[in-house]
């Protein structure tokens, strides 16, 4: 036993070094005073100044936030509805609904992007914020549904029957029973949808139009042509944001478990 766990310990350390070494190199490099940023040429804040002086970053970030928030709200509503139906009715229709959602989860980004692009071309919708919104809602629905379904596993439907027997109407049941009990699941699903939307590059890349570039699409274009130094600076910011977000979400789930 002892030998075995020592082996797995070394592998774990190796994996963590593997995970973080590239990020550390990138962070150090973001202060490197060399245009093409590889060999060390002294310390500088120049790339961070460049980043703040680049109006396109703010503009694309704004686009990302607009898409992220709107598609989060839409996916929360649609995903919660479908999770409730799948769990409550268990009919043939729900079998179709459930499988459609599962298959959608299994489809790689590039296929969703490509088929949506073909779809938008064939019905002559102009590519832009609207098409990105539609694409993001489509891939977020399944995730929200899965998270809310997980929450529904420990949902006692006898409560609803009891409320009905006591004369509650559906609007009251939804407002006073279903939503409060499901809200942790809905919120978790919504946060997942928001992060997926903000992070998405591949699907957005296929359905984006002029003027509707999101931050990941802009970062990608900077990686391909032009300014790797600014990319480093943005990456460090995104890394820090990710660290903070994960830290707080972990704290939240931990405090819930102990309650």
């Amino acid at each position: 036993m002892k030998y075995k766990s020592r082996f797995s310990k070394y592998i774990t350390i190796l994996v963590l070094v593997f995970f973080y070494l590239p990020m550390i190199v990138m962070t150090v490099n973001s202060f490197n005073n060399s245009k093409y940023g590889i060999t060390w040429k002294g310390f500088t804040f120049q790339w961070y100044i460049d980043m703040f002086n680049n109006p396109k970053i703010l503009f694309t970030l704004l686009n990302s936030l607009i898409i992220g928030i709107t598609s989060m709200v839409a996916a929360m509503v649609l995903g919660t509805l479908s999770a409730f139906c799948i769990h409550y009715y268990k009919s043939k229709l729900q079998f179709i609904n459930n499988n459609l959602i599962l298959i959608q989860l299994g489809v790689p980004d590039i296929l969703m992007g490509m088929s949506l692009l073909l779809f938008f071309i064939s019905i002559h919708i102009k590519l832009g914020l609207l098409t990105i919104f539609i694409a993001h809602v489509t891939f977020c629905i399944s995730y929200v549904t899965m998270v809310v379904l997980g929450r529904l596993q420990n949902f006692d439907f006898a409560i609803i029957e009891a409320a009905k027997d006591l004369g509650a109407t559906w609007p009251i049941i939804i407002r006073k029973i279903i939503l409060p009990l499901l809200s942790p699941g809905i919120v978790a699903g919504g946060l997942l949808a928001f992060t997926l939307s903000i992070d998405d590059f591949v699907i957005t890349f296929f359905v984006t139009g002029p003027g509707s570039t999101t931050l990941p699409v802009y970062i990608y274009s900077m990686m391909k042509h032009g300014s790797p130094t600014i990319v480093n600076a943005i990456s460090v910011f995104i890394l820090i944001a990710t660290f903070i977000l994960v830290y707080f979400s972990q704290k939240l789930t931990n405090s819930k478990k102990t309650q």
Partner: protein
Amino acid sequence: MRSDSNKNKFTEFVLTSPTLFWLIFFFLIPTIIAVIMALRPSNPYGDLEPGWTLINFETIFSPLYIPVIWRTIWVSFASTFACLLFSIPVGYYMSRLSEKNRKIILFLIIVPFWTNSLIRIFAWKLILNPDGIIQAIFVFFGIIPESGSLIYSTGTVLLVTIYSYLPFAILPIYAAAERFDFRLIEAARDLGATRWHAFIYIFLPNISKGLMAATAMVLIPCLGSYVIPDLVGGTSSQMIGNLIANQAFVARNIPMAAAWSTLLMAMILLPLVIILCSKILLKKENC
């Protein structure tokens, strides 16, 4: 009674239809359109021509593209295998840690899980750059010639793919290992099993659900990989995803892009259909 169940059906339909129609409109129909477009001929400018054809699929399976299909398959399977190989010991180790240490390691694995994948890929581009530190070390030890390059090869694509998807393999395996009752291993050891036997015959079968989830989480996105070969791979390390994007944005040949998508879809759906069919058959036999 009757009107009540009818009313129920109606409520069910009203509640289900928004999501169902959304998915039918923006997921099912686009997918079908992609398959249909793959059967349309195109002129040399990439515009659609009237009629139907199988020529796009003939092009796909021409000797020119067989290496790309083969590369997509082997890179995906190799990186899935490597991810499992590393995740199993990590999941095992984490599930045996104390609560406090476990939380720290879990945090360190969730951060890369959530970090934007573009950024994580770009970090490797920096490291493996011809002027970078690793190149210098490799040249110094004579592993590669001075004119050699670490980046823009299939090996780099494999490395960065493993780097990108490893967190996605560790988390489900850890979740399964956490629920594993380690007394089973002790019991097996007491009964005379070797460490290796206990690991293979007790631990692995008990985390099989986690292993399956990890395989699906890595293999499927790998098959559809596009960004990684695009950023760190060269022309000789293209995968099917690159051909789809190329046909859509560079060659602007919509039917060809659709044909490549259809092939990729078939590659992913085929194993799923086989699993589903075997499950249905098993159920029937049990009944």
